[in-house]
Structure formats: structure tokens, C-alpha cells
């Protein structure tokens, strides 16, 4: 297979510095304030996205500290019931909708093009729009919270409590509309990632040579496509119930309170796998690098990911075991909830085998990943306990579930995410995070986490329900609650340490070369941080770990233009070159469209007519966004090479 076309005017020389400068000019962000809002380079958007989601993580963490402050002692009076209900709703909504899934997509939008040898994501303007929409939705929610209009019906907003009669005012409407913002953003990012992964891989990177992290993001993105619409439907029905008086959730008029639960959890259960599967990709990448060998069982790992994704859609009723659904039906979901442990177990065994048969480089990223084997495994096992209908009738809606969910979410997602940050920070910024601070960060986090959340298992068994703003002293729950609050404070200290590490490193951290960890995947073949166009020459891939395996001919693609944002589109399964495509230039219109969409969404909280008059600016902005530039089209046609 030859990929350098003799009909092209020039061949790109890998060491051509003029070519590198042209590449930089073509792909970099425009300058100035307007340029800042017009930027669409995937790494720029991704860094903003990561920072924004981490800001929401910190805000959600502060809310958690408020919760623990109030619950540290019985009959405490630090926060009253109304504020407490808003605080725990905001904590859950922030962490689930504004942090956990978006941060995974944010990291993916940085890493995926680099790992597959592409110069960009597909649909870069859509990617920018998704970021702006997400940010504006988050700002809207927090603005509402600051105005005492924060939602207070829980992050899951069960009807009829969240319905028009029992949640008067606009609090729940802000929550429901936040869902629209974030799910729109999530769907768009999923579309971007799927297209990128399937069509922009470097030649030779067939599907069975793709890094496991990229597989994880592909699987996650497909799950997003199927899961998000359910919650958008549910929240839209809730909005219309509240705004115009429909009866979707009104049992007296033919609706059903359980309809909400079904729709929400049909999304809600896959949602936690959306949060869990990308970190499985992180772990594969980190384990391979720090065990100095490829991960054991590549096909089994992929099958495990795909199986988990399918099974995840068949579990949702396990959130509804306390309702009066038929018992036989519930048992089916018990079986499904148990079965989904098998693919995850296979992955864990493969990683342990990789570690055991490799040679260990004990660095901070690996430490965070090792915490997964302790924390997530415990969370998964308590999940198996909750999968049983009978046990769940005792444990549901108690602090046992709070413990379980934090064990799986922090152990399964946040710890690997921190590991990923330590691992890829040198690639993002060109500097290595300090190892010693990293270890302190890790141990404080690990110990603080277990001190905070392990006692909650016991509290749940001792009868303490969830979502309570206080509890009587004579119940005997005070001591363990105090311990949990101290653990939460320790977690806060560890996160502060992380921020300090980041700040210090950005100022005067050790410089990292392109590949400080000796890793095997393509992102480590470019400079740290990567040039604006990622790859001066598109590599040709011959194995799963291109940097570890000997290079074979051909080694790279020549003939790509450095004057225009040109990417090489390849076929889906075998990544054979298909055609070259020009991606659009930076533009302010994604930002303005997001602004117009925000006006439409926020307006429709107050009046249904906003959908009509709000569509006009959105239509105008979208039209300007897509209007092609004549000069660009002419140049493209001129440079086209017919097959």
C-alpha cells in the first residue's frame, strides 16, 4: 500500500521546519478576544472543557463538605432543611451531570485524535459548540442556586415531588433545563468522538490495533447516543407538565409516577457506566505503560467493554426494587445486575495478570490505578449485594447506597481520572507533576476516602436513611457520622494538594520530553505539548503499540497540505486511506449559536412561546455558522485530485 501520491506537488519532509511552521500557522487559534471565543482547535477546547469540569468538581466538593458539616452531629443547625435539600440536589446534579460524564468526554477530545494519529477531531466547530452549551448550562444552574432557586428535589427529581404541585416555583425547571443543556452537549460530543474514531484513524490502525482507551471511548459514545435521549424525554415531559399542564406524570389523569422512574433510570443506569467505562480505558493505558508490557487479552478486553455496554441497558429496574413492580420481573433485573459483574471481572483479572507478568514502574499514575483495585472492587461487591431484591429492600435509600455509589464512582472513575491527570499532564503542558506531592495527594485521598465512606455502610445497616438533613441523637449514628465528616475534610485537603501541585508545576515544574514514561501509543510520539496540528506527518501504524514495536514500511503519509486544515479520512474497519478533507476554520458562530440556544432554553423555563421566538436567533446563528466561504470552496475544488 502506498500512501504518497506522486501527483502531489510536493512531498513533506519529516524534518521540514518550514512545513512545521506552516502547520502551526494553519492550526493554531486566532489571537485576541474575538479569537478566544472563535477557537476550535480540539486541544484548546479540551483544555477549557477539562478546567471547567474540574471547577464544577470543586464546587460539588464544597457542597459535599457542607453536607458533611451539617451531618457531623445529630440535630445540627448549620443548614436548615430547605438549604440542605438544595445543597444535596446541587451536589448530586453537579457531580453527575456537570462533572463525571463531561470530564471523560473532555479528556477524550484531547487524547483521541493524538492516539489515533489524526490532526483533529471530526466536526471541530460542533465540538466547540458542545463545550459552550455545557458551560452555559452549568452557569445557569449555579446562577439559579445563588438566587435561592436551586433545585431541591434530589438529582433524580422523582415525581410527584418534582411535579408542579409539590415543587412550586421555578427551581425544578432550572434543573430540568440543565439536563437539556448537558445532554445536548453530551450527545454532540458522542457524535464527534464516534466519527473521529471511525473515520480519522491513521492508515494501518485497523480496529484491532486501536488503543484500548479509544475502544472505551467508542463504546461510551455509542452508549451516550442511546441513553441521553431517555432523560431528555423525561425532563422535557416534566417541563411540559410544569409549564403547560400536561399529565405525563399525573396518575389521576392517566399518567404514572413510575413513568418518570423508568425513563430516568433507563438513562441513569447507563449513565454510571458512561462514567465508569472511560476510566477502564485510562487504566489499560496506564497499566500497560507502568508494567512495561501490553495489556493481557486485547480481544477479551474489547469484548468485555462491549458486553458491559449492552448489559448496562438492561439493569435499570434495580433502582426501583422498592416499588410495587411485579416480583418476577424484578428478579430478572437481579440476574442482569449480577451478570454485568462478569465482564468487569474479566478486565480486572487481565490487568492483574498484566501487572503480575510485567515489570513495575511505581509512579503516581500507577498508584491511583491500584486504588481502583481496592475501592472499585469493594464498590462492585456492595453492588452485588444491592442487586438482590431482598437485600435491596433493606439497603435501598439508606446510607449503604451512599457508600456503594461513592465507592464505585470515586474508585471506578475519580481515582483513575486523577491517575490519568498525572499520566497525561506532561503531554498537556510539557511539565511533569511532582512525584512526592503526588504520593501525598494519593495517600491522603485514599485514606480520607475510606475514612469518609466506609462507615456509611454501617450507618445504612444501622437504619440511617438517605437525604436527611439531620437525625436524632439517640439513634447512635453521631459517632460514625463525625468520622465520615473528618474523612471528607481529609479528601478536601488532598484535593487542595493536587491543585497546589498543578499550580506549582505550571510555574516551575520539571520539563517533560515527548515521552517521559516510555509509553507505547501514538500520543507520545509528538512533542509535549503537541504542536497545533498534532502530527507534522501522519504516521502509518503497524501494531497496537506503535512506539514499542519496530517501525515497518511505509512509516508515514506524505502529501498532506500544511496550508489548509486538511485531515486524512480512512475506512472504518481497516483504516485504509479514503480521501482528504478540509476541516472548517475557527469561527465565532459556535459560541454565538450556543448563546442563542441558551436564550431559547432559559426562556422556555418561563414561557412556552420562547421556543418560537427563541428559535429565530438560533436559526440565524446556525445559518451563518454553516454558510460556506466561496473562496475556500473554490480553492478546495482547485486542489482536488480526482481518483
Amino acid at each position: 500500500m502506498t500512501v504518497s501520491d506522486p501527483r502531489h506537488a510536493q512531498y513533506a519532509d519529516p524534518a521540514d521546519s518550514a512545513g512545521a511552521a506552516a502547520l502551526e500557522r494553519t492550526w493554531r487559534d486566532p489571537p485576541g478576544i474575538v479569537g478566544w471565543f472563535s477557537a476550535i482547535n480540539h486541544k484548546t477546547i479540551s483544555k477549557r472543557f477539562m478546567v471547567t469540569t474540574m471547577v464544577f468538581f470543586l464546587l460539588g466538593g464544597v457542597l459535599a463538605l457542607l453536607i458533611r458539616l451539617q451531618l457531623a452531629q445529630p440535630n445540627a443547625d448549620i443548614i436548615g432543611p430547605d438549604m440542605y435539600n438544595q445543597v444535596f440536589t446541587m451536589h448530586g446534579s453537579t457531580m453527575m451531570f456537570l462533572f463525571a460524564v463531561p470530564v471523560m468526554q473532555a479528556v477524550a477530545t484531547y487524547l483521541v485524535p493524538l492516539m489515533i494519529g489524526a490532526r483533529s477531531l471530526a466536526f471541530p466547530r460542533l465540538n466547540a459548540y458542545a463545550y459552550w452549551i455545557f458551560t452555559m448550562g452549568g452557569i445557569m444552574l449555579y446562577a439559579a442556586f445563588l438566587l435561592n432557586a436551586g433545585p431541591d428535589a434530589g438529582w433524580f427529581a422523582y415525581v410527584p415531588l418534582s411535579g408542579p404541585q409539590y415543587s412550586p416555583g421555578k427551581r425544578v425547571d432550572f434543573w430540568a433545563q440543565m439536563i437539556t443543556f448537558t445532554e445536548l452537549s453530551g450527545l454532540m460530543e458522542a457524535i464527534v468522538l464516534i466519527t473521529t474514531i471511525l473515520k480519522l484513524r491513521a492508515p494501518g490502525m485497523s480496529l484491532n490495533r486501536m488503543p484500548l482507551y479509544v475502544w472505551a471511548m467508542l463504546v461510551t459514545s455509542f452508549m451516550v447516543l442511546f441513553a441521553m435521549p431517555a432523560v431528555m424525554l423525561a425532563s422535557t415531559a416534566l417541563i411540559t407538565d410544569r409549564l403547560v399542564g400536561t399529565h405525563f406524570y399525573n396518575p389521576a389523569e392517566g399518567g404514572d409516577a413510575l413513568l418518570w422512574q423508568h425513563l430516568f433510570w433507563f438513562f441513569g443506569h447507563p449513565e454510571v457506566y458512561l462514567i465508569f467505562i472511560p476510566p477502564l480505558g485510562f487504566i489499560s493505558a496506564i497499566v500497560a505503560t507502568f508494567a512495561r508490557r501490553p495489556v493481557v487479552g486485547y480481544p477479551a478486553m474489547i469484548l468485555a467493554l462491549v458486553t458491559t455496554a449492552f448489559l448496562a441497558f438492561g439493569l435499570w429496574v434495580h433502582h426501583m426494587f422498592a416499588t410495587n413492580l411485579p416480583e418476577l420481573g424484578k428478579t430478572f433485573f437481579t440476574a442482569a445486575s449480577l451478570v454485568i459483574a462478569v465482564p468487569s471481572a474479566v478486565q480486572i483479572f487481565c490487568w492483574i495478570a498484566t501487572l503480575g507478568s510485567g515489570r513495575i514502574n511505581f509512579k503516581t499514575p500507577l498508584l491511583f490505578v491500584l486504588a481502583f483495585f481496592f475501592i472499585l472492587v469493594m464498590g462492585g461487591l456492595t453492588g452485588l449485594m444491592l442487586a438482590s431484591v431482598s437485600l435491596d429492600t433493606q439497603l435501598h435509600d439508606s446510607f449503604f447506597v451512599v457508600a456503594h455509589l461513592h465507592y464505585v464512582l470515586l474508585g471506578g472513575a475519580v481515582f483513575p481520572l486523577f491517575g490519568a491527570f498525572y499520566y497525561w499532564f506532561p503531554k498537556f503542558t510539557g511539565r511533569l507533576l511532582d512525584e512526592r506531592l503526588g504520593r501525598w495527594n494519593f495517600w491522603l485521598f485514599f485514606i480520607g476516602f475510606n475514612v469518609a465512606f466506609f462507615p456509611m455502610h454501617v450507618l445504612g445497616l444501622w437504619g440511617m436513611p438517605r437525604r436527611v438533613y439531620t437525625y436524632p441523637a439517640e439513634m447512635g449514628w453521631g459517632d460514625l457520622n463525625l468520622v465520615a465528616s473528618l474523612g471528607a475534610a481529609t479528601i478536601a485537603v488532598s484535593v487542595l494538594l493536587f491543585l497546589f501541585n498543578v499550580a506549582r508545576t505550571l510555574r516551575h515544574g520539571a520539563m517533560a520530553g515527548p515521552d517521559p514514561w516510555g509509553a507505547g501509543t501514538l500520543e507520545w510520539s509528538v512533542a509535549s505539548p503537541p504542536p497545533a496540528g498534532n502530527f507534522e506527518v501522519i504516521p502509518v501504524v503497524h501494531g497496537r503499540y506503535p512506539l514499542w514495536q519496530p517501525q515497518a514500511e511505509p512509516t508515514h503519509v506524505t502529501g498532506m497540505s500544511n496550508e489548509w486544515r486538511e485531515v486524512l479520512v480512512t475506512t472504518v474497519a481497516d483504516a485504509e486511506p479514503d480521501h482528504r478533507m478540509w476541516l472548517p476554520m475557527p469561527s465565532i458562530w459556535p459560541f454565538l449559536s450556543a448563546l442563542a440556544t441558551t436564550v431559547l432554553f432559559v426562556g422556555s423555563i418561563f414561557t412556552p412561546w420562547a421556543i418560537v421566538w427563541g428559535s429565530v436567533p438560533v436559526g440565524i446563528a446556525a445559518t451563518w455558522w454553516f454558510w460556506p466561504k466561496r473562496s475556500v470552496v473554490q480553492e478546495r475544488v482547485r486542489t482536488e485530485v480526482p481518483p
Partner: protein
Amino acid sequence: MRTIVVLACVAALAGCEREQRPKHAPPPASGLTGPSYPTRAVAQAENRYEENAWAVSQGKTWYRAYNCNGCHAQGGGDIGPALMDAKWRYGADPASIYATIAYGRPNGMPAFAGRVPEDQIWQLVAYVRSLSGQLPSSIAPSRNDSISAGKPEARRSKEKVRPEPPSNPGELR
């Protein structure tokens, strides 16, 4: 950056009146006379609950609980006059409606002052005004979780007042 923080603090302090949850009821204006309830001296002109969605929704609860719909139905009127139209025999302002509920009116409206606390009467006043579309739609209640008799209060508009038809329908004009 600093501007954002300042704005956030201002916003937090300002709060949003519409979204306030239970307000502690003020002590009855007249002090201790009969059991908890005001004497005729009261009648504030303003209803402090007209901007509070939670209070209006509480008013809706009392409307059902105290059987106002026994005579007024869901606002369409039955034995008692309709409350959702623009015809107010004794005044449409909050103070008049308060007096109507608390002290009763001729032709059958009982006096509730001895039975319903002052604070709840004010909440009822706010709700009654919402029945005729007088409150903004973001504060008036939306549909209830029971069988609906008509449009939710938030979707009602104020009725336009039409000229009175002749009282003797057969009369030639």
C-alpha cells in the same frame, strides 16, 4: 474575576422572593385577643405572599382542605360566585378579599377568622387572585396532581370585562 464574585454575593444576598420556602408567620397583628386571630383593625393593603410561589401553592392546599370548592368549585362557582372571572362583588384587591374570607359577607360567605390562622388567610388570598389570572405565571400554581377541572392557574388570563347584559332578558331594547 472580582466582578463575578461581587455579583455572586449580591445575587446570593438578594435571593429570590419567588422561591422562598416556609416563611415564619409573623405574630398576629392584634396580639393576643381571641385564639390567634386578628381583629378588624388589621387588613394590610399589600399581601406579602403575592410574590412567593410556595405560599400560593399552600393557599391552593387550604382551598381544598377547607372546602372552599364546596361552594366555589374550582373557581367556576356553584352556590357561591365564580372566582375566576373579573366580577368582584366586594373588591378584587388583597385587603378586600382578606376581609371577605376572614369576616364573611352577606348571602352566605362564612367568616373564617376564628378558624383559619391569619397567615393562611393571606395565602388563600394570593391563591384566589391567581384563580382569575392576576398573578404572574411563574408564581401561580401549575396543574395539580389530581383530576383537572380546567386550565392550570398559571395558564389563565385575566378575563376582559364585558358590558352587563340586561337584567330582564325578554325586555326590548
